[in-house]
């Protein structure tokens, strides 16, 4: 493998791994804040105990999310120095704003929330968990603004062979960003509420603390149903936006080599890759691709061959088609699983409404396993959006092959990649065992000190 392949593999591994934890943090922080708010308003002790219970799960995840975020920030310079030099003027600003405006908020208030029980007034303490939730959500905003600029660069000019920021407002109102960010927020809510639902269902299935965990199950279902619906709708609109700015990405997700109008969508297909331009569509749904890509019954989709020719005229000789297999299947994995999650949520809300949630044992079993799905969807979503941009690192401006660090050898990346993969693997195992262990614990009795509570002397410094 060349240093380019290795650098890409390392970036993909780190980003995918990091984003296993990020949506959990964003989603669960919001839900824990909701639990604590409910306790605060109703004075129902069950909600306090649930707050602390799910707070522990949140914190186990944040720990890994935060430290792998460090790798994310460093690796642009480490592995993509030519890219960093080229885009830093534009791309660096949202990253720095993320640190100053969002990450500080999340980290400082997490400490206050975690250790502040009994030290802060209940009202102020409640505000701290909302600050954590806001910080986590804001953090994603700036990262998405930076990423969206790579998908659809706006508000810049190329001066002396480097991109220069000319309008920060354009960067922050980039349509790819606005819709992409909303999509990420909703996906995070889906992830967080699916986990809360699964943990609650496990306890309900074991008839443990039914009274309390029924409350958590209700809350998670009430969040999961609209979040999964809106995530699909927003994602669908994001597809329409991408048809405008990144038509190749959309053509590749249908393996559409020739232009079409109207265009059908295949439920499954065999072939369709580089050397097989006439795939066997198993179930072709007429007009569906037109609707997905253009929001129009008879909308056209420009095929990859035509786009490739256009790009060759515009940017010179080369192959501008991304990996079609990844595009085609990541889109379907994401979309099909989204429907599954939505149906499960719908069923859950129905059972809740008919007061049959507890008696429908198979649903409880199902709800436990559904928690795995958002992680697959999130990963597929990133593969779709990042692979679909290839061969560009910044759409239309710089190719990925030009962005890699010239001074970092393949041997160096082999070393770092092995170290990171070993570390990620170990941490995943530790995180998983801790999550299972704490997810299966009983709720702590009210007022019991946890490991974060330490006795204080009367004396201050």
């Amino acid at each position, binding site marked *: 493998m060349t240093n380019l392949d290795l650098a890409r593999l390392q970036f993909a591994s780190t980003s995918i791994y990091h984003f296993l934890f990020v949506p959990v943090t964003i989603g669960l922080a919001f839900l824990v804040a909701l639990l604590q708010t409910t306790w605060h308003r109703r004075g129902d002790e069950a909600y306090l105990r649930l707050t602390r219970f799910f707070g522990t799960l949140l914190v186990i995840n944040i720990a890994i999310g935060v430290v792998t975020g460090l790798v994310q920030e460093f690796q*642009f*310079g480490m592995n993509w120095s030519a890219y960093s030099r080229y885009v830093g003027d534009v791309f660096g600003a949202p990253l*720095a704003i993320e640190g100053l405006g969002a990450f*500080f908020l999340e980290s400082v208030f997490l400490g206050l929330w975690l250790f502040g029980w009994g030290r802060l007034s209940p009202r102020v303490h409640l505000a701290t968990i909302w600050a954590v939730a806001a910080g986590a959500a804001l953090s994603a905003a700036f990262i998405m603004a930076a990423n969206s600029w790579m998908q659809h660069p706006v508000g810049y000019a190329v001066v002396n062979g480097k991109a220069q920021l000319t309008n920060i407002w354009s960067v922050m109102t980039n349509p790819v960003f606005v819709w992409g960010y909303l999509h990420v927020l909703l996906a995070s809510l889906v992830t967080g509420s699916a986990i809360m639902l699964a943990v609650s269902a496990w306890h309900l299935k074991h008839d443990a603390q039914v009274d309390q965990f029924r409350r958590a199950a209700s809350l998670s279902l009430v969040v999961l149903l609209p979040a999964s619906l809106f995530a699909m709708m927003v994602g669908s609109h994001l597809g329409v936006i991408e048809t405008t700015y990144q038509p190749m990405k959309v053509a590749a997700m249908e393996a559409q080599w020739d232009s079409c109008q109207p265009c059908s969508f295949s439920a499954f297909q065999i072939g369709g890759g580089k050397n097989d331009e006439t795939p066997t569509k198993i179930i072709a749904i007429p007009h569906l691709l037109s609707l997905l890509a253009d929001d129009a019954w008879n909308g056209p989709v420009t095929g990859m061959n035509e786009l490739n020719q256009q790009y060759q005229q515009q940017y010179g000789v080369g192959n501008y088609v991304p990996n079609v297999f990844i595009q085609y299947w990541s889109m379907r994995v994401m979309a099909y699983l989204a429907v599954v999650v939505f149906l499960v949520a719908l069923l859950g809300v129905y059972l809740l409404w008919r007061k049959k949630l507890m008696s429908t044992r198979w649903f409880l079993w199902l709800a436990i396993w559904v928690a795995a799905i958002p992680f697959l969807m999130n990963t597929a979503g990133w593969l779709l959006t990042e692979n679909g941009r290839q061969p560009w690192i910044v759409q239309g401006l710089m190719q990925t092959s030009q962005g890699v660090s010239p001074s970092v050898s393949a041997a160096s990346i082999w070393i770092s990649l092995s170290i990171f993969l070993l570390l990620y693997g170990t941490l995943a195992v530790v995180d998983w065992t801790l999550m299972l262990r704490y997810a299966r614990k009983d709720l702590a009795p009210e007022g019991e000190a946890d490991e974060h509570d330490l006795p204080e002397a009367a004396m201050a410094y």
Partner: protein
Amino acid sequence: MGLQVFWFIAIAVLWTGFFVLEGFDFGVGMLHGVIGKTEAEQRVVTGTIGPVWDGNEVWLIVAGAGIFAAFPSWYATMFSSLYLAMVLLLVALIVRGVSFEFRGKRDGATWKKTWSRLQTAGSLLAPLLIGIALADLLHGLPIDSSEEFTGNFWDLLSPYSVFAGLTLVLLCVLHGATYVSVKTDGELRERARRLARRSTVVTGAAVLLFGVWTQVVIHHGAFPDFLTVGAVLAIVASSWLLGDRREGWAFAMTAFAMAATVLTFFIDLYPNVMVSSTDAAYNLTVQNASSAPYALKVMTIVAIIFLPAVMIYQGWTYHVFRRRLMTPAAAGGAPGAS
């Protein structure tokens, strides 16, 4: 003053803030097994930084992102040149970061001992590697005309750079031990105080030698500048204050010593941001590595709005957790009592 200079100062301030704050976290991480003999004691020692270390580490993230935004070429060349050192640094920060949360999540001596060791190692390696990395900027690395690194891993480890790393480790030990003496009571306070006091001699000598060596490296003769002298005097004063059991003032002195040492370094680096040992013409400077005025202006507005706010709410955290901690036994066996 141009925005480029302003941003160089801002980045120096961010690194200084990082070391003043995270410096004692590193120290506490290194020393928690030395100052705390029993499990309960170690929990208290780590507990002194529990609520704050994460927020402190964000200073590093912002310092890094600030370099990226304000000086993209500096960020690109620095992080790719120091590639393997950065990998090690990330590993150190990762294992140390998760150890805070994971250590207490299970009982069992092996589990706790493993995470304790990882925390100690990570807390020691991190300032050592950052010290080496920063010193390399000033000492010079083989960088060619296209701002790319042409050397190998061993070029990163000049004697000066390694000594800079060790000096930072010592400063973290002094700063961290002093912090524990401020934040605990009883036996732990005494142990931390004695340890801090004992470390002042070596740390003071190292800071002095580092100051002199820096002047030699930048060809400014062999006399340390006034900030280095100030740092050494502060360390001497901290020794005296620790002996007098005035730990709060001693902590102010060690914080000053840390800040002065880091700031001196950036003052001596200016106007370069990365020195090329290949040819001085290839040096990256505040002028040639920076972003354009518009991006710097945007960043300046953002920094002026957010940085004071961050300082206020982070400062408030220290107020909330101002009380000294003690072991449950020393507190009369009432966990959670406040």
